[in-house]
């Protein structure tokens, strides 16, 4: 535990602490890495099992006792899913949805968050509570009224329906508002003195300072849209509009029986883009961004 906490402090600091500590630190670090690697293995186990299962034939995926590696590697599952399904269409649709929802959610969410966190007006807190409150309503209980509305508006069976549904949630507003509250007011005040409007302060000061929050909101929104199943299921009936999750489920359901080998091949393919997005996105969690301008 204490080693863990030591690491909160940058390495340069620790070196000052003296020679005898370096040995301990080094051992601690080795232990830490072993623990981290073990933890990472635990995290990745189901994914590993999924990849291995994607290389098995339909009736061998489940067996007693558990068999981790396939007896025969069935690469055919990947060939099947590439050649016999519209996976390219699905990936394209899912990308369109994920990217546009993420962009719109981040922009409108952080814009509204500025209104909620930096501008004081009557009814603000009540309005905000109303926002947050709707997160507490389970979707399946208002799904049908919502569907009837969008159906009457002629939006069902279009990608727009999913974009509208996913974009205007309270989640992004709430997250960005909480983050803005950590940014010192002095900075906006300085902006005001420089003649910036509130919109200018949002764009020039708040947005650049909230990169880590934008990164985490983008990652989570992207993943949620990418993996959403129920929304596309209810709204997108045309096979040309199907998303990855929907297409895969349908493809597998359309085999004679659930072929888990092929299903897992598809799921493996569908996870890879998110993993890449995450690997690229996580580097925006750079310590100290928000405070860089504070002391200056």
């Amino acid at each position, binding site marked *: 535990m204490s080693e863990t906490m030591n690491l909160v402090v940058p390495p340069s600091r620790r070196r000052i602490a003296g020679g005898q500590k370096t040995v301990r630190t080094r051992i601690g670090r080795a232990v830490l890495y072993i623990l981290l690697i073990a933890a990472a293995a635990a995290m990745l186990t189901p994914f590993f099992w999924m990849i291995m299962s994607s290389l098995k034939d339909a009736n061998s995926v489940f067996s007693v006792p558990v068999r981790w590696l396939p007896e025969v590697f069935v690469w055919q599952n990947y060939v099947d899913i590439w050649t016999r399904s519209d996976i390219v269409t699905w990936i394209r649709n899912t990308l369109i949805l994920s990217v546009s929802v993420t962009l719109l959610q981040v922009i409108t969410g952080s814009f509204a968050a500025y209104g909620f966190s930096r501008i004081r007006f009557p009814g603000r807190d009540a309005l905000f509570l109303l926002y947050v409150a709707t997160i*507490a309503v389970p979707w399946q209980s208002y799904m049908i009224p919502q569907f009837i*509305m969008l159906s009457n508006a002629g939006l069902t069976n279009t990608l727009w329906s999913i974009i509208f549904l996913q974009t205007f949630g309270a989640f992004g507003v709430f997250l960005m508002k909480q983050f803005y509250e950590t940014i010192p007011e002095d900075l906006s005040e300085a902006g005001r003195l420089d003649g910036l409007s509130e919109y200018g302060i949002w764009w020039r000061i708040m947005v650049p300072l909230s990169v*880590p929050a934008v990164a985490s909101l983008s990652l989570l929104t992207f993943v949620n849209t990418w993996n959403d199943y129920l929304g596309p299921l209810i709204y997108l009936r045309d096979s040309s509009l199907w998303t990855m999750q929907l297409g895969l489920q349908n493809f597998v359901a359309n085999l004679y029986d659930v072929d888990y080998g092929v299903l897992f091949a598809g799921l493996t393919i569908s996870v890879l883009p998110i993993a890449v997005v995450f690997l690229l996105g996580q580097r925006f969690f750079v310590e100290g961004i928000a405070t860089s301008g504070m002391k200056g």
Partner: protein
Amino acid sequence: MTVTSNAPRRATVPQAPTRKRRVSRLRIRNTLLGLSFIAPNFIGFATLTLVPVIVMFYMSLSNWNIFGTSTFIGLDNFTRLAGDGSFRRAFFNTLYYAGLHIPLTIVVSLSLAILLNNKLRGVAFFRTAAFFPYITSIVAIALVWNLLFSPDYGPVNEILRFFGLSNPPGWLTSPDWSMPAVVIVSTWRDMGYYMVLFLAGLQTVPRELHEAARVDGANVWQRFVNVTLPCLRPTMFFVVVILTINSFKIFDLILVMTRGGPGQSTTVISQFIYRKGFEENEFGYASAAAVVLFFLCIIVTIIQFLWNKRREI
């Protein structure tokens, strides 16, 4: 405690001049300005979410069966819920789940975030690995954990037996252990998600404060309690609220892992709503259950909101 006073202060509006008319004009200006920021999101939100939610609230007072026809029946649905043994069971199961899942997830994901907020070799890999459970298909997760928890052949029990536990629990097949097993899996699945939120929050903790505290002789734990936690308060509030609501609404994971069984041991409110609405076609009654779930979440959220407000000052 000098440290905490340095933490970011509450946001304030520009100082209002003393004269009353100026005040009210500033008020109008601020209101319009605030609304202009909120409008792009709010208009979409109000039409797409708020309206259907209000319809649902009305439906909870009716015997709606989804096909247009509904009769107002007052609070009958709620009286029926109060006497419904299955609902009571689902209600307490939901509380049980949330009571275990919320604290566990906060501890694990915050520890992970602090650990992976360091400049370690391969930190990008470890962060991605921690996030993997969240992006791995829920179907695969349920299947694998079912295998791991398998009472006779599963690796979990093999390990327990190896450590001398002669009679390990039946996990998902035992009514006493099924809920803890679900909590283990959901915590494992969610920790990467909340870690991402905490990671963003940790970027707002000024390093200077840590160093100042070190100079003052604060140990690791004191620095965590007096520096990290106070600076993390807005993020913590967000995470706790979202986590609470999501825990009370738990649905998909239980559906794919246990379908509520064995018996009714893992049936939760969301599942009750789905059953009543989509399987038994009692949408009015299902809406009433959703309203109860809503108030459960809201009461807890308001308590957190007030607590957060008090701590803010």
